């Protein structure tokens, strides 16, 4: 059972992202419909986003927001001194910040950008699919290839 625990339970987030990624990859490569491929692409990207987000989470950590009780300047100083690059953590009575009490916000921030990129890619993909539909009147890959072959001789 230790084995099972080590491989499966402790790394559950990895398993999930890998499975999702494979589903996405399968759809991108094997599906015939162009829109389904794009859906696969979205799943693929989302899997990576999940992976990143899950990496930032800590056992018992909470939302990484610094609660301000007055001495703003002091907090700002400590925040900069925090060398893990994680934003200022929970402030206890002595003005110390405990990074372990907060999730790592950096991966989450990165994923905001990645989500934007993903949406943009999907947008371009859909626009191109639309153009393909206008030119060839189909979104099925096999029909598309046939039409291309017949026009090119």
């Amino acid at each position, binding site marked *: 059972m230790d084995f099972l625990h080590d491989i499966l339970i402790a790394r559950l987030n990895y398993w999930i992202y890998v499975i999702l990624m494979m589903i996405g990859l399968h759809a991108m490569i094997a599906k015939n419909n162009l829109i389904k491929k794009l859906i696969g*692409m979205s799943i693929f990207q989302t899997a990576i986003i999940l992976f990143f987000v899950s990496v930032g989470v800590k056992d018992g950590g909470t939302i990484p927001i610094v609660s301000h009780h007055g001495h703003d300047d002091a907090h700002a100083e400590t925040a900069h001194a925090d060398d893990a*690059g994680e934003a200022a953590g929970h402030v206890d009575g002595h003005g110390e910040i405990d990074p372990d009490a907060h999730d790592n916000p950096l991966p989450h921030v990165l994923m905001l950008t*990645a989500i934007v*990129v993903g949406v943009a*890619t999907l947008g371009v993909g859909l626009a*191109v699919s639309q153009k393909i539909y206008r030119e060839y009147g189909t979104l099925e890959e096999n029909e598309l290839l046939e039409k291309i072959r017949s026009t090119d001789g």
Partner: protein
Amino acid sequence: MADHAPAILLIAPLFAAIAVTLAGLRRPARGAEGPDREAGDDSVEFPPFQEDKVCFMLTLGALTVSLVAALTMLGQVIDRGVVRYFVGNWTSPLGVGIELRVDHLNALALVMIATVALLAAFYSHRRVEDETPGKSPQFYAMFLLCAMGLMGMTVTGDAFNLYVLLEVAALSGYALVAMGDKRAAVAAYNYIIIGTIGASFYLLGVGYLYIKTGSLNMAGIQEVIAGGGLAGSRTIQVAFILIVLGVWIKMAFFPFCAWLPNAYSHAPSSSACLLAPLVTKVSIYVMIRMMLTVFGPAFVFEAVDWHGAVVWLASIGIVVASLIALAQTELKKMLGFLIVAEVGYMVGGAWLANHNGMVGAIYHILSDAFMTLCMFLAAGILIHRTKREDIAGLTDLYRKMPLSMAAFTLAALSMIGVPPTCGFFSKYFLIRGGIEAGQWQYVAALLFASLVNAIMFFRIFEKAYFGELSSEAPELEAEGEDDGYDHRVDMPPAFREAPLSMVAPLLIASVGLLFIGLNTREIVTVIEQTLNLFALAGGGA
């Protein structure tokens, strides 16, 4: 100002892209949508819009600013060493803040990107309205964004930032391809799928790196890997595999290359002139950057130790791509496969794990960018004039378009590797690296590719120069076929050279090939400044 050059480099095209988009909004619509564009040839001349001119000037201006910034940085780097620029002046120790970092390696690459983009922009002036009717502002906005993304990938010192800029370049690249002919949309679609897979792999690799090292700054990651003895870590190895795989897909390294020839041959020629020379080359730069400054040669060549296999793969790629290129009947398709072969040169050279191979790979990034630019500019001009895409349509062009063909000849000679063009010197370094590494199959593949290129291009020269004189030529009786003693009269050449704004960039680029070739020593000295920091076998000479 000079201190902010790394930022200005990127800001200029970014803001210009916004300005171009805004200018485009003011432009009245002219319902020239997809189906009409078949008629987009010379006969249907629209009066140019004032706004288009503004867009063009903005593009030129922004790229000129970038070029000046790149040149400034090259000067700074040569004078004073590495230039570090912290965006927003946030010097966070482990690199949460974004750092732009210019060393000898990317200073050269930046100058190359800015120059190529500027020349491609000049060329596009006369072609955009033909190829993408009614969409000039959109075209220029994408063009600028793509150039910005490529420069950003090169200048950034942050692994995640690189991903974002990679996607900026890629997304605008997809759009640029999709603007092309009827099949371009399909090619662009495949490009999107493959490109996204590549970029996602890269992102995943960066994730693993971050998990293990806690840093996104390239120099920071290197410090942690080297200092923390992480070379044996499986996480780092997985990260490396994912990143390299992602970049290979992006650069169309054999066997991930199926998308490239279609994408570049169906894209509008103005787009292809930007994308073909730069996208693959910048990806190779990224790979080398990852190998050298992020993971470090000690990790790449000793801890991972696949370089033998990669060089084999590169050699096979070179041979296969060259042969496929030889079988093509369309000029642009042929060039597309040639790019794939050239990618094999560079990947193979970088993985030879010695000094000369790496010098050759980096030098070839530079020379190949200009060769490819020349080739695609020439192809664009020739196809524009002859209205034919196949090689057979090039008959007797030396008389009709002497300048374009002269430049094309020079580029072809460089592709073959004839001294003193730069193609010869990159091959010199690559072959020398191959010999020193004892990778004879790679040496053989390079020589084989040179010969195949020679066959390929001399087939074209033969058509274009020594083809049967065309039927309208007054021809006297041809006697004595066998030993070739026959008589023909001189006939006046019918000049049909393309407009200057198209030919000038081509000529500049082709002169650039000679310029790079003759200045090999200086360029190599600059490259070595960076390489000497990494103990590669056979270096330090």
